[in-house]
């Protein structure tokens, strides 16, 4: 059993707190994504697990073992870096064999293991090429094979797809997930791309300013972000500032919910564009709004809408099936309704 547990990890760079009492438990065999904007501390946290950074306070455990001060090379980890960090002087095969060779494993064992890994990451034909002779996607698959070679307990991935183009990225993402599940290894995956995090992870930890905002399964995170930051960062959402009246916030004629605790005069309401119901004509439920802009996105069309509440203009956007959106033209008046069950409000 080898989960990872980080307890109260704090890391300072001068006066800047890169990590501020971060506590995370990664379960055995789980893939946890660390998601956040650049500078949120996600990479620093990963490097603390790898031993490339030493936390100022707090502890790092893999399985039952406290490895907070263990040197990197003695940790049971495999790591995949952002920019194909293959050894340019070694072939694909030699790169994968490297972690076994530095551990002085017998030659026959190394050969058998390398063969197995080349097959696992589908690089059997490229085994004798040098890193400069293979594509970016192949290079990252080789890096994945190398990371897994010594049978580590934890796999660490530091934005492994960010240097690749979009098409390769999607394919390699699924490939990494397939291999991770096949091997059954505990994994930590750093990314700033929320759709990537949600597609690959069992759970996502949203990080902001050196802290973990929320840890949840992708579907839960998408449906019910627990903090304002998660709501803003995950998925695309309407964020509408509304006045609090009698302990409630809402758009007249559309929805009305209880104001969040601690709100003072105003609250920020979040709801997703697919939960905005648009109906043509002046009657029907909801707030009257004008279609300012129509953006065709393929299956759906996004409408930029401007309505009015308490004499203040309210701008929001809604997604509806493109077939339905055909009937609505720019400049037309529509009714906008929002299901109150899917609205979350946070104090301003």
């Amino acid at each position, binding site marked *: 059993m080898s989960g990872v547990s980080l307890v109260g990890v704090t890391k300072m760079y001068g006066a800047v707190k890169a990590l501020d009492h971060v506590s995370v438990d990664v379960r055995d065999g789980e893939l946890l994504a660390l998601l956040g904007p650049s500078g949120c501390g996600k990479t620093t946290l990963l490097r603390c697990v*790898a*031993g490339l950074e030493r936390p100022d306070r707090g502890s790092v455990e893999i399985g039952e073992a406290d490895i907070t001060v263990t040197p990197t090379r003695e940790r049971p980890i495999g*790591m995949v870096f952002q920019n194909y960090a293959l050894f*340019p002087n070694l072939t694909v095969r030699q790169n994968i064999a490297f972690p076994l060779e*530095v551990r002085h494993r017998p030659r026959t064992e190394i050969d058998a293991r390398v063969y197995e890994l080349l097959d696992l990451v589908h690089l059997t034909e490229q085994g004798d090429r040098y890193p400069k*002779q293979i594509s970016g*996607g192949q290079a990252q698959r080789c890096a994945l094979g190398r990371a897994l070679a010594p049978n580590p307990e934890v796999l660490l991935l530091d934005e492994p797809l960010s240097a690749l183009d979009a098409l390769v990225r999607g394919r390699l993402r699924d490939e990494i997930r397939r291999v991770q599940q096949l091997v059954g290894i505990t994994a930590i995956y750093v990314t700033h791309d929320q759709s990537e995090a949600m597609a690959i992870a069992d759970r996502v930890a949203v990080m902001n300013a050196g802290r973990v905002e929320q840890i949840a399964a992708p579907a839960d995170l998408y449906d019910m972000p627990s903090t304002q930051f998660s709501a803003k960062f995950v998925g695309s959402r309407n964020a509408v500032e509304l006045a609090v009246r009698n302990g409630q916030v809402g758009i007249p004629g559309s929805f009305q919910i209880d104001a969040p605790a601690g709100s003072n005069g105003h609250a920020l309401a979040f709801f997703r564009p697919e939960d905005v119901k648009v109906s043509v004509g002046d009657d029907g439920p909801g707030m009257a709004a004008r279609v300012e802009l129509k953006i065709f996105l393929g299956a759906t069309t996004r409408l930029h809408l401007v309505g009015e509440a308490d004499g203040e203009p309210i701008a929001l956007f809604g997604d509806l099936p493109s077939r339905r959106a055909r009937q609505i033209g720019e400049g037309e008046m529509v009714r906008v309704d929002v299901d109150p069950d899917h609205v979350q409000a946070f104090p301003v």
Partner: protein
Amino acid sequence: MAVEAGSSAVTKSRAAASVRSSDRKSVGRVGRAVFFGFALFYFCVPMAAVLIYSFATRWTANVLPDGYTLDWWRATLADPRIQSAFFTSISLASLTAILDIAVVVPAAYWSRVRNARIRPVVEVAAAVPFALPYVVIAFGLMQFSGVVAPQFQGTFPLLVAGHSAIAFPFVYWAVDGAMAAAGIERLTETAEACGASPYQALMRVVLPNISAGLVTGGLLSFAASFGEFAMAQIIGRSLDTVPLWSAEMIRSYTDTAGSYNRLAVVTLLTFAVLFVLSALVVYWNRGQTVRLLPGAGASDQGGRQ
């Protein structure tokens, strides 16, 4: 002259790289041919003159010598003083290059991977020998050694130390550039994450990926030491290096017949030593460059995911 030969090897390999990259364009091919022809002429004519002089019996009134002989070559190669001068110079230059590599590589590596704060110090130190005339450094060293270790004055070890001090920037800049190009910090972290000890990381990852810089830097410091005259004159007076012997030959022209011819032979031998070394470096680096160049040998890489 020695330094020129070394750096021209570097220039040549750079030129070769740029020629490769612009192969597609036929415009400028003629210009390049003309320039190459001029460079060839510029380098070859003086060498040809020296070569002919080394075989000449007498060369005074005409375009070509009055007659040819192998005497100068025979006499020069058999001269024990010249043999010993070459032995001294080659030992001196080799030790200088080895000492510089041994000192500079760990320092450059340390400043990149472990402690970036010492970088400014190292960089300033690596610029000093370019800024001060060698004569000044030599007198400084003589004064200093006179106080600290007078028994070393005028000896071979002191000259090795002096040459190492003036030649180390060649090694530093070549090695530091190679380390930057290889992304040595990242490679070191990767090696650590793969479970390599610092020694394994150095031997199996760092050195192979900066070998081009090591060889270039080593050759440049060898050449700088081999051709160095001012410092050898001041702190190695009791020694006989090739440049010291050459200077003596020039001064003694009127006394000894054929001293210029023998000088020509020695010049060619010096050139041969440095040329062979340069050729080895270019040949050796070519394998490296081809293997490490982006897209090398990857004509069929696209589309295979």
